[in-house]
């Protein structure tokens, strides 16, 4: 029953590769790709920054960069991996440029008097995950966020990160171990 409002899929199912190539000249094709991949990009950014404002900002930046660079997508890997590679770089630049720890902000930010949204419902859990991911090695955190939040396979995450599938598998495995042993996430998980 949850609405998708303006983001319903209206076109027949076409593969990403085909759409990506069409998207060079056609705004609707890119919009279709956007609808398909918005959630994974947003989840990925949310996992890292832990707040709606920055996650939306980084999601916007990711898709704007993808739009500008769509002509460079050659289809040698999946579109999702290519896109998440952009998302990963945007996230990396964001953290490199931010000298302070990122404040965990409220989901309510859209304006004065506008009712809240459902993101607040999961804020606490997301915050915990986000903070935990920042306590482990960035490579491992990125591999985890790409696979769990970005929905990529290990092979695709490897494409996004420029690593082999085996390397990603190892990063994820060790990252999970880190989360268990070095962060408070274990307590969250055991609740």
């Amino acid at each position, binding site marked *: 029953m*949850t609405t998708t409002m303006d983001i319903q899929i209206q076109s027949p199912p076409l593969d990403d590769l085909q759409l990506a190539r069409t998207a060079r000249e056609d705004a609707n094709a890119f919009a279709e790709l956007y609808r398909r991949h918005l959630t994974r990009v947003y989840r990925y950014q949310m996992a890292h920054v832990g707040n709606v404002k920055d996650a939306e900002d980084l999601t916007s930046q990711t898709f704007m960069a993808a739009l500008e660079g769509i002509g460079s997508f050659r289809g040698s890997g999946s579109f999702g991996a290519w896109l998440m590679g952009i998302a990963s770089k945007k996230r990396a630049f964001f953290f490199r440029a931010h000298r302070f720890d990122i404040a965990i902000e409220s989901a309510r930010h859209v304006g004065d008097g506008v*009712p809240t949204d459902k993101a607040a419902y999961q804020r606490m859990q997301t915050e915990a995950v986000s903070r935990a991911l920042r306590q482990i090695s960035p490579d491992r955190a990125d591999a985890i966020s790409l696979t769990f939040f970005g929905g990529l396979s290990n092979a695709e995450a490897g494409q996004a990160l420029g690593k082999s599938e085996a390397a990603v598998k190892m990063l994820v495995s060790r990252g999970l171990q880190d989360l268990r042993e070095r962060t408070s996430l274990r307590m969250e998980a055991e609740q």
Partner: protein
Amino acid sequence: MNENQNNDIEKLLQNTADKITPNVMFAGRLENELKQAHKPRKSFQFPGLKNVLSVFAPAVALAAFTILIVIVIQKMQPDHKVAAPGVPTKVNPALPAPSLPRYNRYGMTMYLGAEFPKAPGTMKVYTVRNEEMATADSVRALAKQFKMNGEIYKLTGQLDTSGMLGSDTEYLVVDGNRQLHVRSDRYFMYIPDYVSWITDAQVLTQPSDGEESAIKEFMQTYGFTSGYKVEKIEASNYVAFALSPDGFPVRNEGFQVNGLRFGFNQNGISMMTASLLSYDETANMGIISAEDAFKKILDTNNKYGYMEDVQQSMYMMVDDEIVKPEDMVQWTRIRHLDETLAYNGWLSSTGKSVDGGEPFIMLDGYTVIGNVSDIPADMQSTYIEARGQFHEAGGVKTFALESWKTHDGNEEFIRGVIRREGDQFVFDSYVFDDSTDGKKYILQDVPADIPLPMDPAFLTGIARGDIFDWGTINNFGGGGGGGGGGGNMFYQINLSGTPVAFPTPIPPTPSPESAPGQTVEGLRGMLQINIYQQEDGTKLTNYLFIPNAGDDQQAFQGSYLLKGNLDDALDACHNRPIDVWGTIGGIEKGQTVLTVDRYEIPYPDLQFQLIGGTQENKTIDGQDVVLVTADDGVTYIVLDPYGGGAAQATPDMGKAPNPDGSGEAAPDDPNAGRKTFEALIIPDETLLGYPSMRVFNSVPEMADGTPVPMPFSNGEPSVFPGPPPPTAMTIEEIELVYFALDQRYPQYAYDGGQVLSDPFYAQPVWRFSGHYEDGSAFEILVQALKQEFLLPPPPTPTPEP
């Protein structure tokens, strides 16, 4: 390492991920921005403005409003102004924009509609004092200033408002309906009626005595009495500028200001946020003139020393139709008082107050009383099902709770049609996908002034069987609004007293404009037709002409906006060649105009073709080209669709591997490299001895060799919702102000993360502001300090791939 041990962590991560969903308002807005930012490949780019252009949208109300302000101020102004605190120069609204001096900036026409104020020789540079974070005692003092006597709580993100002041720890004072949130001596927020603030829509204020009087009374009442200047500012609400010690307004990035910002709703002032910097004078430095600052704006090679922001109006796109701010309507459900009801809402609680008082519990802004014993302290905002009664006694709004439980799911936000059926109001929800079957609901307490049938109607609330228990109804979907950043970063200030040499400027890139007055005779090129669906239902058609490649085979030489002797016959020539006779000259909509005397359609029957074939990259006569051998055995050379130069060779020869887009073709796959090409074969067009085809699109064939249908045809003109991207901007105001970064939100550069601005100083800037032709507001802040007081930028960061 035992991977099984990590199953619980994996489950937690997956569970968290599954519940993260982008806000539909954000999703819709970004999609619209992407559509507007999408340019067909090979059209002119405005390199420095890509981010800015992405957020353009109509802001008719704002533009009209600005003109109103301009008229008022214009009457008070002498002919020429010396820059002085708070006295900007502004455009003369009687002058039509085309008569104003105009300049070319990244291919966009910039009209100068304000005079350059005379600059004082020097301005101060202030060091911004450190922010003093709030303590219980400082909050108590501030509460006293606001005449509040309620409990004080320390928040760590529980309430919906938490974080609006940019930190995850802040203090809250509650006194009846009033709330005061405090981060520090600098940043705090006062809300006169919390319930009203979150339930009554914010209104677009107009410049009238009513708002200004209310602000002045507010400031008098609460002790903000000197050093302020009240003004209605662009893209926000009223602001009482907290002036610098020498009397200038102080601005932050992104249209934000230093001072008190006021929001209004139907009940008057709905909220006030404060940003009150304090300073120490650090230096007195020479500044450049406004005219020199303007030259920096026009310098396309200038990467640093200015910041640029665009603010769009609140608007929404619904079914490709623009909903303007003045047409947005929202109804908030008025709950029955003093009767027991089921209610779904967001519940949160604080810890005990700093003085040991009981936690403050809030349900959708209402103070919760009654059976609250099982509500934990410090409860994060949680969507619940409650049973109880709304009360209002002595003006204080409360919810007397009887019972509650966490709701298994989220608040719903659905779209459909409201209509009357007999004595009932019903709501037919839309079918979006397989998981959202259309359903008919009964609506209760529907306001009498809702127009019926209402289509579309956007509802928040929760379904209870056949009843949709709505909370809000509106006709636009979401909040809209927003803005975007552009420009670059400021140079750091050189306080050493010894000037540091800057790198030699790179010579400016030649303008793509052709020499005005040049005539063309029989110039062949491709016609591109773009149609824009206007908000009034009419369509605007732009005809762009892209000349063929020259002898050097440079594919794209630029494009022209065709004007003059055009007729309907052109409409059938989208993405097809035409020959043009006419004169080049002038700029319109940011494009060089080619005024057509006459044209010819060399191939009136030319049609797009879908051609199956195999592609290969080759080097012929030292040139990398792409060849396609079609199924009929003919080998074509692939040309760029626009301009006609040889298409760039592409490394990828993969076919569409699987329906989900994953995987790649194996090198020995017999179908590898086979594609379907959407192409235009222009008779007699050859290159390097091969017949040519202009490829507009190509898709690999599926794993089983079957062609993939083309989703869109390039043979038909594109229709874009909304107005065309703006191609002209008018500077309407030039003023000298101070600038200080909002240190709550650390700055990061768009070009790779290098932060160049120094956040610890308030420095003079020339502020150029105005509107794009679509009504979007812009501001460009140019560092005013002379170069000898600045430090050169560090080496250019590694560009993003």
